[in-house]
């Protein structure tokens, strides 16, 4: 492997790894029991009733 190849590999893996850990890590930390911030698990259709079709 040439030095420039190592640099490109390191930079790219670094960027991709950083953002993957940052974002997916937050999803994992937010807990696996809720589909969203309000923990909407009851099949409630959501939204204001008068907005729905």
């Amino acid at each position, binding site marked *: 492997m*040439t030095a420039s*190849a*190592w*640099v490109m590999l390191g930079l790219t893996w670094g960027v991709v790894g950083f953002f993957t850990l940052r974002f997916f890590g937050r999803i994992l930390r937010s807990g696996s029991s809720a589909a969203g911030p*309000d923990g909407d698990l009851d099949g409630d259709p959501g939204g204001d009733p008068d907005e729905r*079709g």
Partner: protein
Amino acid sequence: MPAIAARESWATRVGLVLAMAGNAVGLGNFLRFPAQAAQNGGGAFLIPYLVSFVVMGIPLLWVEWAIGRHGGQFGHHSAPGMFDRLGHARWLKYVGVFGLFTNLTVAAYYTYLESWTLAYVWHSATATFRDVDPATFFSGYVGTSDGGLTAVPGEALFFFVVTLILNALILSRGLGRGIELAAKVGMPLLIGFAIVLAIRGLTVQPGDPGVVASPLEGLNFVWEPRIGGLTSPTTWLAAAGQVFFTLSLGMGSIHCYASYLDRRQDIALNASSAGWLNEFVEVVLGGSILIPIATAYLGLAAVSGATGGGSGFALGFLSLPTLFQNWGWFAPLAGAMWFGLLFFAGITSSLAMGQPILAFLQDEFRVSRRAGAFVFALATFALGFVCVWLYPGGAFDEFDFWTGTFSLVVFALAEVLVFGWVFGIDRGWEEITRGAEITIPRLFRFVIRYVTPAFILVVFAGALIQPEGGAWSAAFQSLLAGEGWPLAPESVIGRVFHIGPEGGAWLDAAGRPTAVLVQDATRLLLLLVFLAWAWLVHVAWRRHGRPERAARRGSAR
């Protein structure tokens, strides 16, 4: 009026993000990306690739999630209904037809491809490739051995049907117990298999049985930057195209999955997580398996030749099964893991193609989930059979190009224009940022409105008039010299008019059908499928219409 009483939802947030990432992670992450990178500037390819990801990929992800979540609040979980809700014009719902057409027609050939990986898992585990050359096996498997235009290969059909039944069974179990469970099982297994294979492949040494070069030479082939590539439009088009296809943009499946979110639930972080997780699988894992292993056993020259067209399919299916035989007792397991990870990559994507079809039937025609899954499997089989039967004549490739490439770009361009200009960027921005758990820079308002459409337009134009050999400057010189534009046979226009040495004749000199006839017949079939979806949308809206329009009509009388 669509039913919303029994609306489904995702059981867990991790499940949602894994399902979205599973939708994006496909065979291309492991077969297409390394070949595209190696052939388009190596490490330099990653610069336009990441630029495309930021200015086109991520914004389109947010847009598709937002359209989906917005449509879901009105009880629509497929694209026609979602687009109908983006404005008052009646034609908007027909833009959404792409979101049905693409999913069904891509599923038709993609599940066939997925079934190959299942068959190869079986044949790897039972050590078939210890005695049989994979290239000979493949041509016999798909029926190209006799050089004809048609084939009815029994084993391929068997695995195709098994794959469709698996898809239909999972889909019929619903969102949480079916799709989400499949993603929660499939994605970790896929990543685990990939890590094992990457470590095993990168640690083979010159001197080990069959090894002719260091696997790091292959890694170098993927990553060494050839800066000249940065100034080539071909590299930029290839990078943008790769980002587009790897994220499953322009399909209608992201919209569908997002439509099961509550209106206050986050889009920004969820979409970013799924997008970057896909990039991790593609860039880190996808770039570390195929080419390094193939280079170690075949040498760099052979690998460079095999990936010349920007596809790693030949290496992945025709070479790797043999190369694994050098790994002794681990060979059957390695083969099963390789094709197993491709299978998981495939099925998590094909499920995402089935769900919008199911959702359309459920929402607009009140079909039960089980019946919808059956209809999806049946329709996919009917269209997929064309790909099986006419595979030697090129029907599979026609499906791949017109539905898996061309149609995606058209739909993505249309959706970003509708979102930014018809729905309006103010409402659109409010939709994207509502409930956001990360701050999206306001610059992306501008990007979504202007840069992303322009970017897609350039990609589209580039595909339309791609010059011979990707030589853009030579093509412009030829044009300025009055010698015309040298269109490549693989450009969109080149394909439409069958530019190339074989011409466009349907029959050969002996009066026998040619591959051109198969190609044109396949295109006609695809057009009819599109029109059929448009008609179904028309019928559905005639039946239930839109409540506020009905109210307007009532008050006008």
